[in-house]
């Protein structure tokens, strides 16, 4: 078994250097924005994530060591195995990430990463502290080990995937050459993912390869006329890292405590974020639908204003962009 380095540990000095560089570039050009309290919160979350990895990492490792004995193949350490493992890991990352946005139990963990209203390289480090306790690794991390990829290889490829995702958290890079934008997750694609504009909600789940979003109908390109607004639907009123870490868990506990049936418990716990028994809250799906209806109504009004009483009026109005459902 080869001795594999930890890509994240190696990358940390580069992360710091790149954040400094982006901060200075942002100050000189105005193409990005850092605000100290937000930066402090993001970096504190990143540091806490590292500590929690040390303290809680054994949970996932114990699981993977246990299931390794059930592996179908013994794939070994050939170079092509690394390539295949990296691509398959990215495919699984897409689905894991998609479920992190659509199941509240996992969203409670992932929302931390989306909780900044800024979008810069420090945002990339705003990571949750309690991920191992959500047991998402059982559902999405087991497949490669069960196929027969060595645990260390899976961990190595997963870490490379995360390191890749660091640099795409920036507003300083507008768009890359078309072939790159077609194949890879880029700053432009990931800005869309972090935006709360209804058009952009729950889009572009990719880690490294954006092709998964194109294949599974969740791709949305960044539009010049729709500037990204970052954060979450209900932005946080605090920069306190502990509150950032716990806020959605507290919401789940309160909601579950108020549930009047098993159905409500399951809905509050495993339903989409924003689910409520009476539909009085808004899920991403609801917000997108209401927004689409409002856009359609506005188009109708505009059409009437442009050509009242003429049959050709509506055809002159440009349809608003709609999500790539």
């Amino acid at each position, binding site marked *: 078994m080869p001795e594999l380095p930890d890509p994240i540990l190696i990358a940390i000095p580069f992360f710091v250097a790149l954040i400094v560089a982006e901060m200075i570039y942002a100050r000189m050009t105005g193409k990005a924005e*850092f605000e100290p309290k937000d930066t*402090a919160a993001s970096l504190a979350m990143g540091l806490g994530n590292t500590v929690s990895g040390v303290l809680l990492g054994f949970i996932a490792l114990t699981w993977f060591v246990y299931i390794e004995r059930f592996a179908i193949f013994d794939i070994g350490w050939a170079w092509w195995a690394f390539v295949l493992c990296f691509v398959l890991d990215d495919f699984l990352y897409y689905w894991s990430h998609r479920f992190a946005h659509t199941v509240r139990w996992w969203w409670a963990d992932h929302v931390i990463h989306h909780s900044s209203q800024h979008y810069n390289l420090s945002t990339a480090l705003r990571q949750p502290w309690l991920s191992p306790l959500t047991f998402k690794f059982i559902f999405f991390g087991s497949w490669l080990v069960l196929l027969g990829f060595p645990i260390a290889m899976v961990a190595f490829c997963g870490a490379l995937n995360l390191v890749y995702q660091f640099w795409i958290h920036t507003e300083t890079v507008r768009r890359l050459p078309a072939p790159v934008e077609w194949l890879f997750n880029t700053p432009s694609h990931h800005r869309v993912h972090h935006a709360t504009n209804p058009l952009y909600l729950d889009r572009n789940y990719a880690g490294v390869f954006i092709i998964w979003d194109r294949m599974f109908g969740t791709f949305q390109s960044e539009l010049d006329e729709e500037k990204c607004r970052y954060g979450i639907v209900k932005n946080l009123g605090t920069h306190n890292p502990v509150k950032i870490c716990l806020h959605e868990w507290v919401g789940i506990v309160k909601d579950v405590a108020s549930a009047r049936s098993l159905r409500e418990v399951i809905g509050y716990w495993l339903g989409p974020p924003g689910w*409520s028994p009476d539909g*009085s809250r*808004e899920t991403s799906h609801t917000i997108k639908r209401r927004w689409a209806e409002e856009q359609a109504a506005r188009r109708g009004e505009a059409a009437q204003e442009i050509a009242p009483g003429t049959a050709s009026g509506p055809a002159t109005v440009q349809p608003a962009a709609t999500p790539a459902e």
Partner: protein
Amino acid sequence: MDDSPLTILIVLGVSALAVSALIVLNRLIGGWQDVRFEDPSLPSRRLEEDVVGFHAGEGVVSADGLAALVMERGEARLGLVLARANRCVTRVVRPGEIARLDADGARFHIHFNDFTLPRVTIDLDDDAAQGWGDRMRRFVRQPGQQTSGEGHARAS
């Protein structure tokens, strides 16, 4: 790589120093502009952007320019916008979603059942305090009223 406890401690210690240095650097080089509300136009726009279906009506800005209240047209909901450094935090309040409202002259303490925004203090001009105080009271939870203000965005 060596993963002994000492190495981990050194990595964490160096990381903490790097984090502190980055925050100090951010503060020193500046580049952000804190939001101040001059009038209700910016908070109204933010509410309409953040909350699909919210159509801003009349609004008022706090004396320090750090908070604003905006009634929805038709007065079904009350919008609250807070300036937090160079960004805004918005909330749309429905009847029963203010847990408690304390008034001290023209100063209002609004209490929410909201883990990240449990209390907001707004100083209004004396002229505006009476009318907006009455409006806010319409959104205060009544004894025995069931609300669950925590959680996600709420529909109209």
